[in-house]
């Protein structure tokens, strides 16, 4: 199997005339955690949303270039198919408030009208919730609404929901910025577990988080990919002055 799972080739993204992601070339290896960091408005979230084609849901948003998933261009695929392969978790925990915890986990099947036998559903729910270390906490209240859970639990529920679809890549858009420190560290621990089975791409404002959880880090600035490399290297000896200024907090 090729070690590169996602690869962007001259990827550009626009909001109307606003060029927000400029010529990004990046190779993302399988079963790694990739942190994408940079100041606000540097295009990191846009790039992330480009990977599973969520970018184009925004009116006026367009994109050029290629995003390769297993050497197939996702820009040529149907977005719905892409999103089944590449799951996404958002900044604010957003379980479906009208569904129970159980139904939230299998929402991807249930709401897409995919019928599964009960035993299979049970298996997926237990498996996914175990993966996100939530099974023990919620196994007795699966019929309760997802919104009864705490913020951190909700976020893990959302991760379980993405994991249930067995994607290859999981995208995280600032997954812990709405969580308290304890929930944050629970979710961060989770990343180390999840990378055994998935490739994780995490956009984060929090440099320390990028340092803690990732194997490789990409630094975006003004829509450009300034530096991309091993996290250790990046945080001890960055090769670009802009990266150094950013991670040392000397940015002006």
């Amino acid at each position, binding site marked *: 199997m090729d070690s590169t799972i996602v690869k962007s080739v001259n990827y550009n993204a626009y909001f109307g005339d606003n060029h927000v992601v400029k010529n990004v070339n990046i190779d993302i290896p399988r079963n790694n955690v990739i942190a994408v960091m940079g100041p606000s408005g540097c295009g990191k979230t846009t790039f992330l949303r480009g990977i599973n084609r969520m970018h184009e849901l925004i009116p006026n948003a367009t994109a050029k270039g290629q995003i390769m998933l297993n050497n197939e261009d996702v820009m040529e695929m149907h977005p719905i198919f892409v999103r089944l392969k590449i799951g996404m978790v958002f900044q604010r925990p957003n379980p479906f408030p009208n569904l129970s915890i159980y139904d939230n986990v299998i929402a991807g099947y249930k709401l897409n009208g995919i019928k599964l036998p009960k035993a299979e559903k049970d298996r997926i729910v237990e498996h996914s919730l175990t993966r996100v270390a939530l099974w023990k906490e919620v196994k007795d209240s699966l019929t309760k609404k997802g919104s009864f859970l705490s913020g951190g639990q909700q976020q893990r529920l959302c991760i379980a929901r993405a994991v249930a679809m067995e994607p290859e890549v999981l995208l995280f858009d600032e997954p812990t910025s709405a969580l308290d420190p304890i929930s944050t*560290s629970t979710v961060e*621990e989770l990343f180390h577990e999840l990378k055994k089975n998935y490739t994780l791409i995490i956009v984060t404002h929090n440099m*320390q988080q990028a*340092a*803690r*959880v990732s194997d490789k880090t990409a630094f975006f600035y003004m829509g450009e990919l300034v530096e991309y490399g091993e*996290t*250790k290297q990046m*945080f001890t000896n960055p090769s670009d002055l802009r990266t150094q200024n950013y991670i040392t907090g000397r940015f002006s």
Partner: protein
Amino acid sequence: MTQLENEIQAVKTEVISMWTLVESQLQKTRSAMLHFDRDLAREVVLKEKRVNAFELKLDRDCENIFALYCPVAIDLRFLLAVLKINNNLERIGDIAEGIAKYIIEPLEDFDHSVFEKTQLIKMFDDSISILADTRIAFEKEDTILARSIFKRDEVLDAINRSAIEKVGECIKDDMNVMSDALYVLSIIRKLERVGDQAKNIAEEIIFFVEAKVLKHQKESSGKN
């Protein structure tokens, strides 16, 4: 276990392997000296490179952990202590190498009577056991054991203080052992440094476990 705990555990294991290596270096130097085994002494000199490699790796690991995990409280103290212990251990490695070189240089075996008169063997054994006990204190985070190191270092200091006199007596008794006696004096001087390094390490252990700084404090025992 959090990722930081994993990393710290890995560092601890690494420090202990380095420690064991340094101990075995001293041990080998001791037996090379006793049996005038130059090959063993050469091996010690060669293996010093591995001690240095350990030092570099630990430095880099600590740097990475500082950069990536921003450790605080006991984790921070542990890593700061490790940086210094690392340094101390490397010095002890250097000392072992230095002594090993003394064994390679002379053409003939040492006169063992000088060893006995100057308590060199006892000093050697003491330094090795002090070092081993410091390691155990580090492994178990045992500050009582760490504090006992200070007392035992004084024994080494005492031997060191009496060394000039004893070496002088040896030379007076028999001019033929002059060069041996001078080598022995140098070795004693070096072994005294091992005790000092072990004491510094003990201070670092107490620092990281109890957050108490013992450095540069006048101790009741009189020695600085």
